[in-house]
């Protein structure tokens, strides 16, 4: 059976010099491979600068990898032409860390949530509004919020809106790039429960990027640890947490403020 998402040897270089033709390159991704079975969650853990966000952008087709392949339901999305990619894009959605910048502050909630429909151009105005209301219900936002701007919404509400927007066009894979990191603890719990609930009702697959192991433990079936543009360790969640092998994993675990025992796991140092 084909894996739902499979990344093979992904490499992404950025030019580091002053001029566009400079030879200096910075390798954000240095040969990354991972795979996620359908309807499961993979947590990608790593420090800032390890390349997590770059990986997210590449998988979502928002950046071009320098080399390597990304197989989504058996299709190599990295190798597709732009217009073919467009068709696939709605299925892979990204939810960003800071909703204040991922939602246009001048737009109302309705405009934000209906934007995907607008862009795809397939729906009538009435249709768009109906679907928007359905989406808002699904993420737990009251319909009265449609005319509010992001400045009038709380952090949790904004993220719910971002999730609603991601779901608008039947997304199958949702990449959450530190999506809960900017929220208060209690709100984090609410939103992560919402995400789990959506996963089971809609059959979503999650790639959950975080630097917090506790969050990863709560969420994911599998964990992959990233360091300096490479996956240094990956496997089932309990295994990683119980017996981390790589040094990077250990130091990240050690830095986790919450004790994993709360989750019924013990760690050997």
């Amino acid at each position: 059976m084909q894996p739902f998402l499979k990344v093979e040897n992904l490499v992404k270089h950025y030019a580091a010099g002053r001029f566009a033709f400079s030879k200096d390159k910075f390798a954000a991704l240095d040969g990354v491979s991972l795979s996620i079975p359908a309807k499961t969650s993979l947590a990608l853990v790593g420090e800032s600068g390890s390349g997590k966000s770059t990986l997210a952008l590449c998988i979502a087709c928002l950046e071009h990898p320098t080399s390597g392949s990304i197989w989504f339901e058996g299709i190599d999305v990295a190798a597709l032409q732009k217009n073919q990619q467009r068709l696939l894009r709605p299925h892979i959605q990204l939810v960003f860390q800071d909703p204040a910048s991922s939602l246009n502050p001048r737009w109302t909630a309705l405009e934000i949530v209906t934007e995907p429909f607008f862009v795809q151009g397939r729906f009538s105005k009435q249709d768009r509004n109906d679907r928007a209301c359905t989406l808002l219900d699904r993420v737990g936002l009251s319909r009265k919020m449609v005319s509010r701007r992001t400045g009038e919404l709380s952090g949790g509400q904004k993220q719910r809106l971002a999730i609603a927007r991601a779901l608008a066009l039947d997304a199958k894979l949702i990449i959450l790039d530190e999506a809960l990191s900017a929220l208060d603890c209690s709100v984090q719990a609410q939103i992560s429960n919402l995400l789990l609930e959506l996963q089971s009702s809609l059959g979503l697959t999650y790639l959950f990027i975080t630097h917090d192991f506790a969050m990863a433990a709560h969420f994911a079936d599998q964990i992959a640890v990233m360091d300096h543009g490479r996956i240094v360790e990956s496997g089932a969640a309990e295994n990683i947490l119980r017996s981390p092998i790589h040094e990077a994993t250990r130091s990240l675990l050690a830095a986790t403020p919450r004790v994993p025992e709360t989750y019924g796991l013990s760690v050997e140092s």
Partner: protein
Amino acid sequence: MTRPRKLARWFVALVVLHCVVAGAGFFAPYDPDEQDRERPYLPPMRIHVMDAQHRLHLRPFFYPLRLREGSFDQYEQDTTSAVPLHFFIRGAAYRLLGFVPSRLHVFGASGARICLLGSDAYGRDQLSRILYGGQVSLLAGLLGAGITLFLGALIGMAAGYYGGWRDELLMRAAELFLALPWLYLLFALRAFLPLAVSPLEAFLLIVVVIGMVGWARPARLVRGVVLSVKERDFVRAARGFGASDLYLLRRHILPETASVLLTQAAILVPQFVLAEMTLSFLGLGVPEPMSSWGNLLASLQQYSVLVSYWWMYLPALAIVPFFLGYLGLASALQERTGAYKIDENSSWSPT
């Protein structure tokens, strides 16, 4: 005063000023081309309410001027006939805003001409010419600024959005244009094009020339905005559902450039009006018989006019309230966006 109030105050003041000029037909007592060769170079005429016999008149009046005995350019008031001033009187025909025919003027007189600001060598009323001339000069400034901002926005967006070699090329070109002495470029551009053209052609020519000179600064500013907006996550997200470049530029990026463009407009329009005035003053702009603030001043190049007919300077003062209005608007806009930086963008000088 709060910022929005301040902004509104300046804006309203400007609108009023522009309306007066737009309604030149109504506010001007005479047709600007109406000549009176018997009485050239009339000095500004005074309005009285108390006549020579110390009687008070209810209706303001004036004394027509006649040539003094033995002089050919000195006038004196003819106190024997007091000509009353009427308001909202029927006078020369004109078309309001170019298409509404009317004969109504805000003030005027029958029987003699009242030249509140004097008249020129052909006896044409200066007040009327200033008002009509304002239409030409202001329009040149507004259209020129429109062209510049359009060009600048286009180039700035292309450079900022696409980046790469296109960006480099465009920005080097912008540097080149910024480095050129503005006024020289203007003159050179204008003078190297055909000189003897009809007034309308001349007007269009200078509007285009003025518009093409100043695109570099707005382009750089717009590019800055585009560069910062381009990386915002909501733009990325929109791309994530397959938005095209045009969509992103139109719906997300363009609205962000609005405030920069507005501020630039407030700074550029008066500069461009001044450019038209300079060109016309030196004979490179709008030619006679069309009047513009610039060519109304052209007669000042003659020594005799400077010495004897000081009121020919008055058209120069016409631009001052507009400069004030635009300057106020620009600084209110800059306050609103919180940008007070000491750099070329806040300077008034054209270079």
